[in-house]
């Protein structure tokens, strides 16, 4: 089996270039590629377009890339909880394209799956529909939406093997599998990297074909945004 392992995050992101289009997995701060983001922050990059459901918080995740002014444009569905983001947006420093979450997920899936466009009901009659083709099927209106692809996709999995196969855990799966498939170069970081053959082929969420580089991540912080508990 083809071995996709690279030494660490620094090696994995070494050829990311300014003005590239990136995808970053995660929902809120759950399942984000922490190691890759840290390695990207250490590089001198600018003009990036980041496709990610959220934009992190001020001092973690993509929020840190915004602080460093590496990002020219965000393509997201929800960008609350980020004061620096809002400041850059209102001042015009940052371009933002807001997309309904399901449309975002499906556009990314379409990018990986070779579907250049599809119809969805989300956004009909709203400003999301501006400039888009509207068509009726079986009595209901739909919008035509295009695929999304990226030069580099960054995903975070629970377990992975050297062939690039990935297994996610809990709701940290979210956008990661679709982004893995939509990246020209997909870089996966995992909490536990095992030799090919150790994962059950029936339990794999992302087949290795989508992953170009994989590395063992370290020091996961896994920050929680809304720690909510109930009494015993």
């Amino acid at each position, binding site marked *: 089996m083809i071995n996709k392992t690279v030494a660490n995050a620094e090696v994995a992101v070494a050829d990311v270039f300014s003005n590239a289009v990136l995808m970053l997995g995660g*929902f*809120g*701060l*759950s*399942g984000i590629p922490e190691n890759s983001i840290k390695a990207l922050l250490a590089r001198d990059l600018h003009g990036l377009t980041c496709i990610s*459901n959220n934009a992190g918080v001020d001092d973690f995740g993509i929020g840190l890339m915004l602080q460093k002014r590496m990002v020219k444009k965000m393509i*997201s*569905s*929800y*960008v*609350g909880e980020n004061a620096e983001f*809002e400041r850059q*947006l*209102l001042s015009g420093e940052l371009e*933002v394209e*807001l997309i*309904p*979450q*399901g*449309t*975002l*997920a*499906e556009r*990314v*899936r379409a990018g990986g799956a070779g579907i250049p466009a599809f119809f*969805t*009901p*989300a*956004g*009909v*009659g*709203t*400003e*999301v529909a501006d400039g888009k083709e509207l068509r009726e099927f079986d009595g209901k209106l739909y919008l035509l939406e295009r695929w999304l692809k990226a030069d580099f996709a960054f995903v975070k999995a*629970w377990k992975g093997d050297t062939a690039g196969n990935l297994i*996610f*855990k*809990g*709701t*940290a*799966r*979210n*956008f*990661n*599998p*679709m982004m893995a498939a939509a990246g020209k170069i997909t870089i996966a970081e995992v909490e536990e990297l095992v030799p090919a053959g150790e994962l059950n082929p029936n339990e794999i*969420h992302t087949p290795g074909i989508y992953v170009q580089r994989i590395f063992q991540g370290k020091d996961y912080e*896994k*920050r*929680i*945004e*809304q*720690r*909510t*508990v*109930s*009494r*015993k």
Partner: protein
Amino acid sequence: MLNKDQIAQRIAKEVQNGQYINLGIGIPTLVANYIPDDLEVVLQSENGLLGIGPFPTEDKVDPDLINAGKQTITMSKGSALFNSSESFAMIRGGHVHLTILGAMEVSENGDIANWKIPGKMVKGMGGAMDLVASAENIIVAMQHCSKDGQSKLLKECSLPITGIRCVKKIVTDLAVVEVLPEGGFRLLERAPGVSVQEIIDKTEGRMLVEGEIPEMSF
């Protein structure tokens, strides 16, 4: 007038056995606390879970298990995990029976606005546009009027809308209101101690009032 928990409690009465339900952030999340124990329902979290359980005890908190409001949660027995594309396939495909969400405005033809205040709030629509474009039954939980006293049940939405002709029912601090298929609101119930006249006065859109309007019971 109902408080938030009472609005949630009243909405819980709309829940039917066997339903798959998506609860939005805010008051809708509270609905889970009032669903009768004898009803078998499954709560969907659009970030990739069917079967939301109670919030975890301190020792069970797992950063890899959150709901769409980014709160830590648990899984109920028989739950399933999946990715965001599958999650919205479920929603768009009409497999989720009931969606309960908050709103800033609802118009008398069922349009809803809940994602943007131009020049002020630019957080994004999240999954709301997909949900309102897809679910067969959509119930809105909100205050009847804004903080400065403006009605939120309008002839037409003034804010950028999230979806058209989709809201079926509205539960506010004052009333339970149906959106008629042909357009227009119809008053179904009033909050304890609230008069029909007060509800009419606080509703900008057309409000049909037929016969005796019962007080809500819980």
